[in-house]
């Protein structure tokens, strides 16, 4: 189990680093997918099959595909990477180190109260269980999320819609008619 | 001559001073290049020759002036008439005004005449070669352009012809 975890952790960190290092947006998106997939496997190990498969469906199946779609649509495969200001980079790395150190200290300090993960008990994380709690205890958040999604969809449509004439096609036809 | 055609031809010959020829019931009007656009305009607007059927040319090489005749056929769909208009051109840098303004369909026909005979049409919107490759040398339908005949292989010259034939790489 531990071996599996280390392999997965290695892959997850590796893909995350590669995502940051690569200069091609397409490759970055693909590394992100791999990262999500490894994390999904971790979820499976942690007894959350529902969340794991939702993760793959939502993140790998829709979110990153959208990313890829937009990259291809814009033709933005190769754009400048992290060539930003020198001090900004140094500060960022410094902050990262501080954050990691903070985490490490906390982790070592309070390790005792956390248990180890073993095989999950029967029925833990089953869809029925999640569904029950989702629609009773968390019914209100579900509604709010639904509204957020709706707003997002409407907003996305409004944003992506070409603002001028009804459509490019109509405009072209009109222009053609004028020219005769 | 067709009775419907004759008043039209008379009117046109008077107005534009062109020469009318008849052969097998078909009328050809011969007129200089500069009057062409006006003639076509009045043909379309006054005599309802709505459609330009064809533009082509004939090369009378080695005769030099005129060496080319650019031949226009216009058709009246409503009256069922065809009229031929010929424009004689000199052999040296032949050029004539385009009929594109009157009949938009002249665009490709004139490109073809340019491609095949080297007659340029002034005012044409897109004077490029149309059927031959863009880097082709010469104008194939001129009479001084060789047919490009390839020798027929017989037993006696089989090897010599084969030797001349290009062979592709695998």
């Amino acid at each position, binding site marked *: 189990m531990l071996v599996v975890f280390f392999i997965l952790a290695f892959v997850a960190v590796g893909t995350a680093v590669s995502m940051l290092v690569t200069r091609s947006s*397409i490759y970055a998106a*693909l590394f992100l*997918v791999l990262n999500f997939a490894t994390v999904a496997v971790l979820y499976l190990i942690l007894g959350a*099959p*529902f969340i794991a*498969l*939702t993760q*793959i*469906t939502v993140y*790998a*199946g*829709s979110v990153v*595909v*959208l990313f*890829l*779609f937009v990259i*291809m*649509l814009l033709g933005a495969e190769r754009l400048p990477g992290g060539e930003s200001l020198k001090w900004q980079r140094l500060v960022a790395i410094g902050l990262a180190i501080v954050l990691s150190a903070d985490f490490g200290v906390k982790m070592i300090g309070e390790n005792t109260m956390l248990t180890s993960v073993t095989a999950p008990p029967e029925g833990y994380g*089953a*869809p*029925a269980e999640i569904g029950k709690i989702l629609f009773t205890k968390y019914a209100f958040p579900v509604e709010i999320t639904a509204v957020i999604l709706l707003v997002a969809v409407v907003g996305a449509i409004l944003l992506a819609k070409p603002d001028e004439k009804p459509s490019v096609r109509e405009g072209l036809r009109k222009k053609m008619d004028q020219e005769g | 001559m067709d009775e419907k055609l004759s008043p039209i031809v008379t009117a046109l010959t008077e107005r534009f001073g062109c020469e009318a020829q008849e052969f097998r019931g078909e009328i050809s009007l011969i007129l200089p290049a500069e009057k062409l656009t006006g003639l076509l305009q009045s043909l379309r607007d006054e005599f309802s020759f709505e459609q330009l059927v064809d533009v082509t040319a004939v090369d009378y090489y080695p005769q030099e002036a005129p060496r080319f005749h650019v031949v226009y056929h216009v058709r009246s769909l409503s009256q069922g008439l065809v009229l031929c208009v010929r424009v004689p051109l000199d052999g040296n840098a032949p050029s004539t005004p385009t009929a594109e303004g009157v009949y938009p369909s002249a665009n490709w026909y004139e490109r073809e005449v340019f491609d095949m005979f080297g007659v340029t049409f002034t005012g044409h919107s897109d004077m490029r070669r149309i059927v031959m490759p863009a880097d082709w040398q010469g104008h194939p339908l001129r009479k001084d352009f060789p047919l490009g005949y390839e020798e027929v292989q017989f037993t006696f010259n089989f090897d010599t012809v084969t030797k001349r034939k290009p062979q592709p790489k695998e």
Partner: protein
Amino acid sequence: MIGEVILEALWKGIAVLLFLTAGFAYLTLFERRVLARFQVRLGPNRAGPFGLFQPVADAFKLIFKEELIPSYADKVLFVLAPIITVIPSLIVLAVVPFGGPINLFGKMVNSYVADVNVGILYISAVTSISVYGITLAGWSSNNKYATMGGLRSTAQMISYEIAMGFCFIVPVLLAGSMSLVDIVQHQNETMWYIFMQPGAAVILFITMLAEVNRAPFDMPEAEQELTAGYHSEYSGMKFALFFMAEYIKVIAVSVIFVTLFLGGYHFPFVDQIPVIGPYMGPVVMLAKTMVMLFIIVWIRSTLPRIRYDRLMAFGWKILFPLALLSVLVTAVVVLLV
């Protein structure tokens, strides 16, 4: 104990893979013969008796064909894309039961590779990642036709996935479980879901055709506009993998459809046949799948291709609301009954 479990999963997995690959090979022949019959022709009949070795010939030819990688292509993704396309289509059937529990050498064996309690979610997850192969193939070829094919298929698959997801919910609501084993069992106890919810069944069938890019939704490889679409630049085995993925997906969606709406491996009275009855599950499944495949080929031979903008409008403006409606109706009925 654990070794035994792994071994069992292994041989069952291999059995499913063999079924799919052999099925793929003979589906191509089946399609070519049936299509030929629709078109008053004979179809391939020279390779072996009745052309039965035709798939073998195709396979050997493709194996011994030169593999070209265009010089402007993105080499890594160009090679990876066919593999990414094939794998989801191969693993999607892991949760489908092919028959009831059978007695094999004195041991009761279940006829599925795995019974996951989120089986339907597994299917939708796997189908949702199958879009990658096509998108990347189109992009990495560095060919305008291929890129357009890839973009088209991405948009198409994402759009139809939504309606498909809603159609998946209908059996889940009816059976009260996400496990395909439970769904089939419930259909056996009550009736086939296609009789309960014919609307959802039809929508699911249409969306599945679109999801696997079959006629009349074969936009990404619309031969008449995009030459060969996303696999324009592929040759040899890499092309064969795309070919394989496409046909395996067709088999897979047929099997899934049969499982969700046509009662899976059940058929009235078949399991009461003495002696062989319990073993008839896979045979029934195969027969039902064949019927589905025949319908798919029939559609291909009859219908023209839908235009791309109409395809998207159809998915979003017609199928999506209808699927939503059928979920609503099902939910209300399940709640009241």
